[in-house]
């Protein structure tokens, strides 16, 4: 159907025709960089708007409705306000680390977009260890948070950063183990191959109950990894005012804020890619005409639809659940999720060896 690969191929061919190979490659980097930054800011705007709308809907409110049509430009107005604010660096703070931290967090969430397949043939870098790359890069963001907390010279920030460190490092295990189940079933770390393997059906349907379990664990773990409620201990508002970004203001705060939302998008995109078939349309067995209609829906619509569904679920969590306590949070991971996902991994391995999946 509509494949964006035609456009990308066209651009690629044109660049190599016009310029020497090195320059063409460099130009491609620049184009991709601009695209990622644009996507980053658009995602930030859309997701913050969506968060406010979802929150308002769940809380019997209207949400933003003054700036622009139906309040669409509220986030833009907020961004302008944040840009115009003074970027304060508190006394006694480690200036270099304090100012570097938001950029590290932001860069991580940008780099992590590289192996994501946004639509059929629309991918920045189809690296053969794509999933591994994602898990490896996402662990770097904790360094940015720890730096922010430590360099702020504020006790709330320090506590928030330490909580965040403990939390992200723990929950990465479960998230990683649930990702591995799909890697075992597919036999590849490459994102495009994982999606291609789901042409006959998404893993969540093909993989029986073990994949369903790992999907649930994945959603819980990434909610914790992105510091979202009910696992928002790193910035627990009623306890630590704002946690690790208490001392940040202006654009530096906005970078943390944007990075949080883009991280949500990225983890949901990974979830959609691994478990819900990425851009693959929904097919039912031998219903030829039904499958044909589904094929007509553009692949990017499928991908973004699935991703935004998962984002909605994560927002739903936030506006429904109370926050966990730090010891309960770690108990949940080390005493429940990790043993379950390890046992689940054995089941999936068995399933893959015996070929029990569809």
């Amino acid at each position: 159907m509509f494949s964006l690969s035609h456009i990308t191929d066209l651009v690629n061919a044109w660049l190599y025709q016009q310029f020497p190979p090195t320059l063409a490659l460099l130009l491609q980097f620049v184009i991709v960089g601009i695209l990622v930054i644009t996507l980053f800011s658009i995602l930030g705007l859309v997701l913050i708007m969506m968060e406010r709308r979802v929150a308002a809907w769940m809380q019997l409110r209207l949400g933003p409705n003054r700036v622009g049509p139906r309040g669409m430009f509220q986030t833009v107005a907020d961004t302008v306000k944040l840009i115009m604010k003074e970027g304060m660096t508190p006394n006694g703070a480690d200036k270099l680390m304090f100012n570097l931290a938001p950029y590290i967090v932001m860069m991580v969430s940008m780099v992590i977009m590289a192996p994501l397949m946004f639509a059929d043939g629309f991918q920045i870098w189809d690296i053969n260890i794509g999933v591994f790359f994602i898990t490896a890069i996402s662990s770097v963001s904790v360094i940015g948070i720890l730096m922010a907390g430590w360099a702020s010279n504020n006790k709330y920030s320090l506590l928030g950063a330490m909580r965040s460190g403990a939390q992200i490092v723990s929950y990465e295990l479960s998230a990683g183990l649930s990702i591995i189940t799909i890697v075992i079933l597919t036999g590849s770390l490459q994102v495009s191959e994982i999606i291609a393997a789901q042409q006959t059906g998404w893993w969540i349907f093909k993989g029986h109950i073990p994949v369903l379990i790992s999907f649930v664990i994945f959603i819980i773990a990434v909610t914790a990894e992105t510091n979202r409620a009910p696992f928002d201990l790193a910035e627990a508002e009623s306890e630590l005012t704002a946690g690790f970004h208490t001392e940040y203001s202006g654009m530096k705060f906005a970078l943390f804020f944007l990075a949080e939302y883009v991280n949500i998008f990225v983890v949901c995109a990974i979830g959609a890619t691994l478990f819900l078939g990425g851009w693959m349309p929904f097919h039912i067995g031998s219903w030829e005409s039904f499958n044909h209609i589904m094929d007509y829906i553009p692949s990017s619509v499928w991908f973004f639809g699935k991703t935004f569904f998962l984002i909605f679920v994560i927002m739903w969590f936030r506006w429904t659940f109370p926050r966990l306590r730090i010891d309960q949070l770690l108990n949940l991971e080390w005493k429940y999720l990790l043993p379950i996902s390890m046992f689940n991994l054995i089941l999936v391995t068995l399933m893959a060896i015996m070929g029990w999946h569809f």
Partner: protein
Amino acid sequence: MFEEVASTEQGDLVINIGPQHPATHGVLHLVITLNGETVKKVEPHLGYIHRSIEKMCESLSYRQFIYVTSRMDYLSSHINNHGCAMLVEKALQIEIPSRAQYIRVIMDELTRLASHQLWWGAMAMDIGALTPFFLAFREREMITDIMEETCGARLTMNYMVPGGIMYDIHPDFCKKVKEFIKHFRSKIDEYDELLTGNIIFQNRMKGIGILSKEDAISYGCSGPTARASGVSCDVRKIYPYEIYDQLKFDEVLATEGDSFARYQVRLVEMHQSMNIIEQLIDNIPEGEIQAKTKAVLKLPKGEFYTRIETARGEFGIYVVSEGGTTPYRIKFRSPGFSNLSALDHIVRGHKIGDMVAIMGTLDLVIPDIDR
């Protein structure tokens, strides 16, 4: 009963929570000593919103000082006013018309409902759930609308006068109250669905912040906080005032003394308040709303004390009169102050998150503590 004073050791973290902090619901300043995440000691520092209301009352007449008390516990301002009016009536032996008594009790219970609703939302916010706050305010809005119609104000109503109430109820009052009760009865189950049954909420609440019966008594706790520990202390039952002795309602008691018990006691109290209002709303007698009083009130020489059950506990007013038009000395016994004093005892050994949750279940109103 005095606990060993926890000393600050090397490696302990001393944190100021407040006076500007989202967890304290006001300008309370807590200096907490932490060992990692575990609270070793909590020192409440008061005085940030001290307006010397007691001293101010000494220069106000017996008609005027009632309304200053609205600014103490602003969530049960009606009940504070009621207590002060009762003190003047007791000292001057004024008989109040029964219509005024009925309306006073209905208003008190509406205030209690509104206060508990706000507490429910604020406490949920303390443990990180933001949506309950909006649900609670949806219902609270109906009460404030009723209050606005009859009293002319939404928060500090100033409706009580010595000898009765200031003006008669609005013609729509009974209808609106009945509508509200019907609406709230159908909505209070939502509170349970959203929060009470939640597994995270129960884990955060059960077995946390246990206040034993002995401690509750020795710290002078009152109201739902003490009743959750099994202390029978409902002034409406023990020293009935107005028409509470003719009403059928239960004193809500629990024995666990933990955060969840305090939560449950308040939720059940809301049901009890609705029962009380339902008993009264159809039978408000016709007649006067104020007893005849002199223009200038002079209390006889002596000491007077009245107590009343606010939404937070026992509110006591102690007046020393020299026979003049103003009190010689006034002392208020505010429930929040005593309840706060138990905080250090029950929080020790818990995590910071629990400290905030426990503070939420104590239902502190800071202007009430500082006065």
